[in-house]
């Protein structure tokens, strides 16, 4: 007998202004299966999810749940249709007990005492069925992250969910907690629940899903059974392969490294090990690209290199006339003065102050310097001059430094930031996501700029989630996986397949060899 899919979408579209966040997305999630959705950050995964649990409404397309065409106007309606979402950031009230969190909004009656007694009886059954063991009377604030996640899942089951959407559930978990989660997912599946598992970690897809859909740039690239695919194929589908532009390259000076990273380890904000024993050198006249699936230590590496995060082990040193002290890496101010520019990964978070004018943003981070500030007073005409120069040089539009940075497009914001960071002619430039949220027109210009700096003998390190971009501008590509440096590949030996495999964690040396063998056959 044919069973209708738990969730099916046909040509679902969602636009925000001119941007198509979801473009004809068709998805089939079979009843009682674990279906994975993978895609890079910004690929449109979250938009799709938000339509599936009623937070957004699609512009066009059909949503079919258990064979019925429905439209979901709110999360409550999605819940009524048996779809529940476990958010990446838990929707829990921390001072409340586990039980209070579970009954909130589904109390059933006005008085709590009876509601809690009834809930406990119902939860007993669920606990036995799914093997939960949660301390119902403890405040959620005292639970571990893994336990909180199980509270969220139990909350969904308590409300009678048949389909659970897990949005990047492993992002905040320790490896042990991940294993527990995978066990739970398998148990849920064996009890007939359907699970939509969203992640950008490929080994998780391989470990728990039955089938998988890859999304890139708002479109479905491929839908396949997990058994018949491989991490490499998924990685390639995820990052895509556009035609890489050939860039004229001057020679790299492999003399003394400009920047040297030695055995560096660092902790993440959650005190997990984000970087483990990383060593590499950055030379003058090269672009070292850093690739990896998001969340594998790239952010922490950028922070270490720009003085925003302390290393727990090892050190970073800078050579050259300015300084030879490793201490500069604990302090962004001295780092800038020592000639290290920083184009921040998250522009709006740490690159600009969006509500301040472009003129003020043009000197941010350099506002202490003598030419902009004397005796505590800002030198307005010098600042004005600088801002106008940056606007002119980088063709920032509109040409109005009085506007708040928020009113510029992403591309123009980025151009302003780059102008600011290279204005003092730094010998080293650390760049995070050079073209994230940047319009196509500005991308080429930014790439040309990076190449020009490289050809002028500067040392550049570029972290990007866009593999095509790294292939286009880098001389060497370093790949991070799980906080470890998998390897560094010269651009001449790098191809999507090799890098994709390395992003999935396979060591470089074996890969380059096996890739060549593969071609021989």
């Amino acid at each position, binding site marked *: 007998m044919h069973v209708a899919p738990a969730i099916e979408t046909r040509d679902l579209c969602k636009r925000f202004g001119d941007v198509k966040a979801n473009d004809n997305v068709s998805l089939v999630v079979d009843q009682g299966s674990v279906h994975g959705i993978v895609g890079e950050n910004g690929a449109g995964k979250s938009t799709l999810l938000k339509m599936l649990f009623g937070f957004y409404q699609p512009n066009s397309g059909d949503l079919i749940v258990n064979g019925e065409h429905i439209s979901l106007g709110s999360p409550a309606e999605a819940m009524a249709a048996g779809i529940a979402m476990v958010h990446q950031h838990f929707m829990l009230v921390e001072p*409340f007990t586990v039980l209070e969190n579970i009954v909130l909004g589904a109390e059933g009656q006005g008085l709590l005492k009876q509601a809690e007694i009834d809930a406990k009886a119902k939860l007993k059954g669920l606990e036995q069925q799914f093997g939960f063991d949660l301390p119902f009377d403890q405040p959620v604030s005292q639970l571990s992250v893994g336990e909180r996640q199980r509270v969220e899942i139990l909350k969904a089951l308590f409300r009678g969910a048949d389909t659970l959407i897990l949005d990047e559930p492993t992002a905040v978990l320790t490896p042990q907690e991940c294993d527990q989660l995978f066990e739970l997912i398998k148990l849920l599946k064996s009890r007939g629940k359907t699970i939509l598992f969203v992640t950008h970690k490929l080994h998780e897809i391989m470990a728990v899903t039955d089938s998988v859909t890859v999304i890139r740039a708002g479109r479905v690239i491929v839908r396949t059974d997990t058994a018949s695919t491989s991490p490499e194929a998924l990685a390639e589908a995820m990052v895509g392969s556009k035609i890489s532009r050939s860039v004229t390259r001057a020679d790299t000076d492999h003399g003394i490294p400009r920047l040297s990273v030695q055995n560096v380890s660092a902790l993440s904000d959650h005190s997990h090990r984000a970087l483990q024993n990383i060593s590499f050198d950055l030379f003058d006249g090269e672009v070292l690209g850093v690739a990896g699936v998001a969340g594998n230590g790239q952010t922490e590496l950028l922070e270490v290199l720009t003085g925003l995060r302390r290393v727990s082990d090892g050190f970073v040193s800078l050579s050259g006339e300015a300084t030879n002290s490793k201490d500069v890496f604990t302090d962004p101010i001295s780092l800038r003065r020592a000639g290290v520019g920083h184009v921040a990964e998250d522009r709006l978070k740490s690159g600009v102050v969006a509500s301040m004018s472009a003129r003020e943003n043009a000197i941010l981070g350099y506002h202490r310097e003598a030419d902009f500030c004397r005796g505590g007073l800002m030198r307005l005409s010098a600042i004005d001059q600088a801002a106008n120069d940056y606007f002119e040089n980088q063709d920032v539009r509109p040409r109005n430094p009085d506007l708040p940075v928020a009113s510029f497009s992403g591309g123009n914001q980025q151009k302003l930031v780059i102008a600011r960071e290279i204005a003092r002619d730094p010998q080293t430039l650390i760049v995070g996501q050079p073209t994230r949220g940047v319009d196509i027109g500005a991308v080429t210009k930014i790439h040309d700029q990076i190449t020009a700096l490289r050809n002028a003998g500067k040392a550049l390190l570029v972290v990007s989630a866009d593999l095509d971009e790294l292939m286009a501008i880098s001389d060497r590509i370093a790949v991070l996986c799980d906080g470890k440096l998998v390897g560094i590949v010269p651009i001449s030996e790098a191809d999507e397949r090799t890098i994709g495999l390395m992003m999935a964690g396979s060591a470089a040396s074996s890969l380059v060899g096996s890739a060549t063998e593969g071609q021989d056959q």
Partner: protein
Amino acid sequence: MEFITDILLLSDSTLRISAPLILAALAGLCAERAGIVDIGLEGKMLAAAFGAAAAAAVSGSPWVGLFAGIMVSVILALLHGYVSIHQRGNQIVSGMAINIMVAGLAPTLANAWFSLGGQTPLLDNEARFTAIDLPFAKSLEGVPMVGALYSDLLSGHSLLTYLAFAMVPLVAWILYKTRFGLRLRAVGENPEAVDTAGISVTLLRYQAMVIAGVLCGMSGSALSTALGAGFIRDMSAGKGFLALAAMIFGRWKPVPTLLACLLFAFVDALQGRLQGVSFPLIGEIPVQFTIMLPYVITVVILAGFAGKMDAPRASGIPYEKDR
């Protein structure tokens, strides 16, 4: 014997003074537990005091006065709610605006309506909430200890004082034992969780503001129709802020808040008793200093003991659906 009389008198004034404080502090508690900082308690109290006194003066009934006081306060609470919930405005600014507006508006209206230089007419006892004798108070008066405690201390307060104390367990019961209370507390901690649970954040917060308005209205009415006998310019005299401090000192919980109110009321009563009293060595303390006492103690307590840790997490933050 004189010492015991002193203690009794002091305790008696403490209870009397604490009533408007308790009601206002509970109002602030309900608002903040739902995530809305209500620094406009002072203004609402003063407005309610004026409304109650004016209506009682015109109608001759304290009940009409109480109703008017509550209505005025609820309207202001809803105004604050509109700014905070719908317009996502700054809640401190909105609260202060209410305080300043009422401080000017109430005496102006009083002057326009009654032409008494910004006051309302002196209320006679029929138009006030006067002392109530509890059952058997008269007959127990002669009994040692019991008589002093029951007949002198507990009996003989106004209805609003008894109501104020009754509100503490009521508010606690609503907050901790009902579905509404659970949701109210949740919306002050994590409105997103409430929203995804399919409950309206907006409606809950307006409901909390109405409750705060009613409680604050009772508080203001107590000032002008129970403790006093009419509205006088600035008669709230910072009691709204004192209530806010008591709520913080009471860590946003009803019973500790009650105790904090009693402490503040006690210091206020003590201050009244200390006026004109001559101390050995120091002599008489100037009245300006004794009046300062409750406020100084507030500052010391808040600086020393009150932690930010216990505040509802979403308090003061407007809820925006998709950040």
